[in-house]
């Protein structure tokens, strides 16, 4: 009954085929099976947000999703977002503003922030706080994180403007 199930999915653009036990959640699958350890595991019950990844383009808690549930899906982790250069400016802004200290929350914080920046070109600080409200940071007090996200939004906006014909 509790036998492994075959799954086939895409992770950061690459096809992955595996056999997983039903109880393995997506976070552990990414970390243990695929060695993608940028996805962090904090509370394991959906509160801290450290395990945030993208599934089919939407942010989700990977500790609250089973690996068997992502059969046929496209999963993107911090490794994918980072390697593609999609968030290099956001990462630079985090570094510049000291928006991280221990770094445990950072990969998920970046993914959640990018999710907002994709949807809204100029989010206000309240909107940024609201969108990141499901991601805990125990070091920074959030101020610098909100600064970094705000600065990235502004920089992207002026970049897009200067590119416009």
């Amino acid at each position: 009954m509790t036998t492994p199930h075959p799954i086939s999915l895409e992770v950061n653009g690459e096809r992955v085929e595996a056999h997983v036990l039903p109880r393995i959640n997506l976070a552990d699958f990414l970390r243990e099976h695929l060695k993608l350890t940028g996805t962090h595991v904090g509370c394991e019950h959906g509160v801290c947000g450290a395990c945030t990844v993208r599934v089919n383009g939407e942010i989700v808690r990977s500790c609250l999703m089973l690996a068997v549930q992502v059969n046929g899906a496209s999963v993107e982790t911090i490794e994918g977002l980072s390697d593609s250069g999609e968030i290099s400016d956001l990462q630079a802004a985090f570094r510049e503003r000291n928006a991280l200290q221990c770094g445990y929350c950072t990969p998920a914080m970046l993914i959640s922030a990018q999710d907002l920046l994709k949807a809204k070109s100029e989010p206000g600080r309240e909107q940024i706080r609201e969108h990141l409200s499901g991601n805990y940071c125990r070091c920074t007090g959030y101020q610098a994180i909100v600064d970094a996200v705000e600065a990235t939004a502004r920089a992207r906006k002026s970049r897009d403007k200067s590119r416009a014909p």
Partner: protein
Amino acid sequence: MKAPAFAYARASSVDNAIELLSQHGERAKVLSGGQSLMPAMNLRLLAPELLVDIGALDELRGITRQNGVLSIGALARHVDLQNSPLITTHAPLLKEAIAHVAHPAIRNRGTIGGSLAHADPASELPACVIALDATIVVRGPAGERRIAAEDFFVGIYETVLSAEELLVAVEVPLPPSNATHYFCEFARRHGDYAIVGLAAQAVVDHGKFAELRPVFFGVGDKAVQVKVPALLGADVTPKALSEALQTLAEALDPPEDQQASGAMRRHLSKVLLARCVAKLLSRPDLATLEPA
């Protein structure tokens, strides 16, 4: 912690899901969005032997308007409710409530069917569907049952659903054009479960309530609908409101926990009802009425 071992079956149809649930009864649990079930399993508060995953059942998705009702499939996610023009038009109460449900990553997975079947007494959606006078549609081996939302919830994490039944849809009657609503909750932090919350649907006609359905959550073992005849059909005077608040205080017997005492919850409930009445009638004078 991590979930204990269990078996997993991906249902291929609603009938197949019901068949699996009939075979395994109490030992099985339905997996919808998993945003309440998975935490409970990871914390080992629940240890089902089998999960029946209904996530691939497209027949349970979608929000449609038909025959005078808004039909919401059980698998409609919080984010789907938030973005649906039909919900915005016909059930704005739901849209407003969703903004208080957890956080974006949770709302991308959590479903209305899952939230209602889970029946957390502090969660927003059970109160909303009672306020909206919705009908919960469930299917089991014996066919379909249609249950009024106010009869659906029994107690903490408990509904009238049997282990063989599946919640398939929620039907919300289309409101009249002069319908209005109110939603507010007190929580320690935005996105947390409410200490006390109020979801209300109303019809206001010439400055008077033709109808008012206030439903409180976080105040008992399930959402509590409070009858307020003193506020209906007539101009609401401070005295009438004061009486209604007194009736409310007597109707509620809120629990004490680490977040608030019973007395504090009762007080906050009165504050919420006064604000609700003031807002819906555009009578700011009533909101400042000091609840005794």
